[in-house]
């Protein structure tokens, strides 16, 4: 098991984000369409990484609520990219054995006749390894 410090380093490395650039303006949270579904809010991602509390981050609901729509990335005045941070946290989880958020046997139930392939492919890539 990695130490919190190591985990934080991994998140910074995978995301390429420097949390120190954040000026805590909250524009990411103001832009996020999933804000209400998230327990840890976009503007908090940065401080969780800075405080090396990755445990809370990887166990948060937010991990699976981010749409990767890049609204936060586009509007961030400091070029921090909170969306990339949360994706890196997600990577930490799905790269672990048993970390998948989507199981193959769940799929049939989720299908409907119109459902485009693209949706399955995208979900697979975001939710599992």
């Amino acid at each position, binding site marked *: 098991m990695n130490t919190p410090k190591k985990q934080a380093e991994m998140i910074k490395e995978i995301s390429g984000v420097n949390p120190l*650039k954040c000026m805590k*303006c*909250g524009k990411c*949270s*103001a*832009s996020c369409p999933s*804000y209400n579904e998230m327990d840890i*809010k976009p503007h908090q991602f940065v401080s969780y990484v800075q405080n090396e509390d990755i445990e809370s981050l990887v166990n948060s609901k937010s991990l699976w609520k981010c749409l990767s729509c890049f609204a936060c990335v586009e509007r961030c*005045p*400091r070029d921090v990219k909170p969306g990339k941070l949360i994706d890196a946290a997600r990577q930490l989880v799905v790269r672990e054995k048993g970390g998948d958020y989507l199981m193959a046997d769940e799929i049939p139930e989720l299908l409907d006749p119109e459902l485009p392939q693209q949706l399955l492919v995208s979900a697979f890539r975001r939710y599992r390894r």
Partner: protein
Amino acid sequence: MQRIGVFVCHCGSNIAATVDVKKVVEMAKMEPGVVHAEDYQYMCSEAGQSKIAEAIKNEKLTGLVVCSCSPRMHETTFRKAAERAGLNPYMVEVANIREHCSWIHKDMEEATKKAVILARAAIAKVNLNASLKPGESLVTKRALVIGGGIAGIQTALDIAEAGYEVDIVEKTPSIGGRMSQLDKTFPTLDCSACILTPKMVEASAHEKINIYTYSEVEKVSGFVGDFTVDIRKKARSVDMDKCTGCGVCQEKCPSKKNSNEFNRGLNTRSAIYTPFAQAIPNVPVIDRENCIKFKTGKCGVCAKVCQAGAIDYEQKDEILTEKYGAIVVATGFDTIKLDNYDEYAYNQSKDVITSLELERIMNAAGPTKGHLERMSDGKAPKNMVFIQCVGSRCADKRGKSYCSKICCMYTAKHAMLIRDKYPDVNVTVFYIDVRTPGKNFDEFYRRAVEEYGVNYIKGQVGKVAPQPNGQLLVQGVDLIDNKQILMEADMVVLATAIEPDPSVRKIATMLTASIDTNNFLTEAHPKLRPVESPTAGIFLSGVCQGPKDIPETVSQAGAAAVKAIGLLAKDKLMTNPCTAKSDELLCNGCSTCENVCPYGAITYEDKEVNDHGIRETRRIAVVNNALCQGCGACTVACPSGAMDLQGFSNRQIIAEVDAICR
């Protein structure tokens, strides 16, 4: 060969307690060129200086080395002493055996050894010193102020009051600048026009001040004390002497649908216009792009109605050439374009406005006669949202990296004024930080919250979405409550970042005044010379140097004036003789030195040289001694070794290196 005298100071016990001064004297005597060496209690004292003078006379000294405290302390003292005794002051070198030796070492032997080496290095240098003479240049006793806003007006008034002639060059048809567009000023809430217009009148009536409006600086040459400037007086199409300012032409002009710049495009004006009622001069200009007469040749209404016969369609741009001793830049600012921030829907809704536009809306002379109303439908707003830091404090290319400094205060002002005049309007301010350093500033902001009930929310706005019913849906965040907020507003006001007026780039280039990545003019020293440009004779006033509010601008304007006056008060300028000099036999005219010179002091001349009997014309670098500040950048850049710095020549420095490493 030099005849060098070495003088070792005890500085009481400051030096003598750790350095064996006698030993230093003894060792110095053995150095080449040294004909005299002695020590004394206090070399800087009257008696010490007499000893130096005596030795210069008796020993016919050609160079001096004083081993004492730092040259930053007493170099000038010893140079003056030498000069009084008839020796060129630049034949003096100081070996710093106090700060750099006796004060930091404890072991006497070690400190003495070092003091001897430091003395030796100074002696080696003096052996190669040459007499230098500061140059002289005459000062034209007239100043140019570029920009006629509050900064330029204040600077001009202060210089004129000191008795010097000042010209103001203003590119728009009237002086007054941004301040004339403001409604009220913080933190006192007095009306901007009421305090500005008297100053405008004072400037225009002052016998020492000459104002060129609708004019631009076209070309600058020369140097400190002696600038030559070409000013383009754009054709006004109205005779300044004949016009009485009655305003009939503006009333009758049929071309009325032209965007009104003074009102930030919120309404329209006629093609012949004065920007605002209190304009100085109160003489209109014809905007030729929109004038029917100039577009089609037909019309001429203004000429027909003008009783004074002042309309002159044939007028042409005029170029004036004037001489100045000092130039003050006061070009001011504009707000940034908001095209890259359309999450705030500035380009999508007329009811999303900048704070400067709100100033015009609140102003009695503005597009709504001072009534707070929406630009889309003229309705009175019930809910207003202010968004801070729009384009300020931005790390990406969309905005500006700096804090615009004035927004927190003017937003508190707007919020307070609205709550005061329209108590039923709800005002919400989204902020990142409220920055209010300044006298009575934080108290002002707190009043907005505590007495006027302005709702301050810590957090930013992500999106402003115009709704089908004409409302604006503001989606923001409250970072204290950790809630996303959806709020309907009738008007959204953006605290838009300010940037130096775009014209400053061209002006800075003409003046060879350096400019930073944000287009602000650079100070000669950020702490100690904040109103001077690194280029001698160029001074900075107002926002062209960095974001500031009115009181700060006015104080800086005064400071810039004092610096300009200090220059104009001199008849002649003594120039630092430690300037660069190129060896015309070595120079190949490659322009490398010109590129590294921060002062534009290097030019090229075709000069006839005699190179070992061969006479030919060559392109050669010439250093202007009045401009060169003696940094030496060019000496290292020069690929042929032609450039050298007087007083710090290659040979002198190498001699020091050799002496230390010996």
